[in-house]
């Protein structure tokens, strides 16, 4: 009978056969499967946004208010009181132009870090590629980014600062870099969070610390030359400097250091995704 099967190809040979077996060690990242589940990814993003903005008026206002208030506080403390030099750029727009990509990065990172825990219920009840969860939580930040970017444009008009229009396209790869880094760090944290719940107390501290090793409240040139190499290992340095250079048309264009950012980001992302894949099969047992 098995011979008959061999000679006559099964009509359903094209249908998907799922093989379930123990897995050990490193599992490749199944991009094809992620692609097949792209609809679910968009549904997750859509759900998060919908829930976040459900109390509509206030929801959207908050998204705009949060970076603006941070900018106001920074302008008073660092601009007015500490008088941090900004190359003649008004401090509010100096800070805000960096805050927009920074908050996008930090928000994505902390949402991704908690994403597996907040989806624990789903993870125990239904199968889907687990990577979708942190990816969706990072990607959902794009809307927030666009909203606060809108405020940035208004501010630029007010301060009569004009962007380097011929270079404006570089914002897209810079944003992508911030996204991938946010996801990479988020993946590591989300896995730790499954096993150690105290990660959630570490995340705010981590983003706070990271803020100060990124030129958000001060210009990058204040960092001494002997620290430059170490400093540039932080990919957000490249992202924030790039944003200021394009939008405020000041400072130096991103040089070779941007490639360090790219390499560091890819390393964090790929190792994070691989580690995530390695342990994801045990999530449902532990979470």
């Amino acid at each position, binding site marked *: *009978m098995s011979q*008959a*099967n061999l000679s006559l190809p*099964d009509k*359903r040979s094209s*249908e*998907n*056969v*799922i*093989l*379930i*077996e*123990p*897995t050990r060690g490193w599992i490749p990242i199944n991009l094809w499967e992620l692609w097949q589940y792209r*609809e*679910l990814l968009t*549904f997750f993003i859509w*759900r998060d946004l*919908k*829930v976040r903005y*459900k109390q509509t008026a206030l929801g959207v206002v908050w998204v705009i208010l949060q970076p603006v208030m941070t900018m106001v506080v920074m302008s008073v403390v660092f601009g007015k009181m500490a008088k941090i030099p900004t190359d003649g750029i008004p401090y509010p727009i100096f800070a805000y132009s960096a805050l927009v990509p920074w908050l996008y990065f930090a928000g994505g990172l902390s949402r991704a870090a908690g994403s597996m825990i907040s989806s624990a219920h*789903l*993870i*125990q*009840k*239904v*199968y*889907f590629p687990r990577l979708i969860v942190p990816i969706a939580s990072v990607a959902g930040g794009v809307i927030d980014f666009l909203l606060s970017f809108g405020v940035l444009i208004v501010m630029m008009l007010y301060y009569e600062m004009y962007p380097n229009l011929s270079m404006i396209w570089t914002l897209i790869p810079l944003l992508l870099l911030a996204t991938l880094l946010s996801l990479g760090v988020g993946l590591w944290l989300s896995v730790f969070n499954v*096993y*150690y*719940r*105290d*990660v959630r107390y570490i995340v705010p501290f981590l983003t706070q610390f990271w803020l100060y090793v990124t030129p958000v409240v001060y210009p990058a040139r204040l960092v001494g030359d002997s620290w430059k190499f170490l400093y540039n290992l932080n990919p957000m340095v490249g992202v924030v400097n790039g944003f200021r250079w394009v939008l405020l048309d000041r400072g130096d264009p991103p040089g070779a250091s941007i490639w360090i950012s790219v390499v560091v980001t890819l390393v964090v992302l790929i190792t994070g995704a691989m580690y995530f894949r390695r342990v994801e*099969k*045990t999530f*449902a*047992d*532990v*979470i």
Partner: protein
Amino acid sequence: MDSPAIEVVNLGKQYVISALHDGRQSISNALIDMVWFPVRMGRDLAHGRNPFRPSEDDLIWALRDVSFEVARGEVMGIVGHNGAGKSTLLKILTRITNPTAGYARIRGRVGSLLEVGTGFHPELTGRENVYLSGAILGMRRTEIDRRFGEIVAFSGVERFIDTPVKRYSSGMYLRLAFAVAAHLEPDVLLVDEVLAVGDAEFQQKCLGKLGTASQEGRTVLFVSHNMNAIKVLCTTALWLDGGRIRMAGAAEDVVDSYLGAVLQKAAQQSAFPAINTQYGLGIESCQAQFLPGLEDDTVDLKIDLVVTATQEWPRVGINFSLTTEGGIKAVSIGSKLSGYIFDMQPGLNHFSLECSAINRVLAEGSYVVGLRLSSPGIERIVDVGEAALIDIPGYDFFGTGRYPQARHHGPALLPLVIRQKEHVSS
């Protein structure tokens, strides 16, 4: 020759017990563990154990050497006690968790229904949840678009479809959630104890839909404690016991053997003493007997119950239930309903539970007595599902010489009267 829809070969799942206990450890604990690791390692090596592998007594096989096949279009039921490995098996087949040994092969599109309402978000409206839950269960957007009307009609909540589901009654919520799941069109459907929720009408609807699925030629694997449902819906069944297959075969046979074993176990009364050491309260013993009733052919049920307490316990409720051998709950009388709440003194507290002429209200058959102790704020101090087995004798309820039997006529003896009133000749 068709290859089976589900093929399971030597499937096993091992858990580390300690990981089950402190899965959510904190980093500080992990650091302390790390500091102590050399000490433990030395101890392990001295005893000839591999320090990097959990010790054998720390491992538990939730599922072991399980092999079976489900043919296309077959409906297979899975029965077994809690902890027998039923849910673990389903979790492996739905790819939620990974097996430790063996493999399984599933041909076709898999739909799983491990609970009703997976992925529902309370803040979203019914309409939004249909889409979200549909996508999570594996439906394409276009598919949901196409079947949306049908889903909503099936759920019967058309009027509230744009209301957030947090405002739904639990019944509406369940109906909508089930409607989404019911419109999945998988080749292989894996269903866990879905029927345990909702009222009788809802359960009937679920069962009906499962029946339809099998008629449409879908392969179904169905875990349930409802033995009648398994008998009615399934052609074959699998009995899991302690993670292994105890019996496989025709659903009818497997269910009968399983129930036989359950009743036998109940008869042995191995359940006692059942003491909750944490609370220092428990059931020392429980003896059921029948006494002749006041009227002819009636019997009285009398249960001697001894509750033991290590300290004074105020307001302990005694909750009583009877389940037929077919798994139908005949009665469940909670202490809130009955008001049978007592203060327990340290030592042995004796009770007598009496029910006169029980065979006038319940049909002939074997019943399992369930006893549960509760107190305000604590649902379950002790819960003995199979406290005793009683055989209620038959009673000529309708005076026809035929004795109603729980197995065939249902457990309740309803004083039904059918009267002819008038006759109109046409």
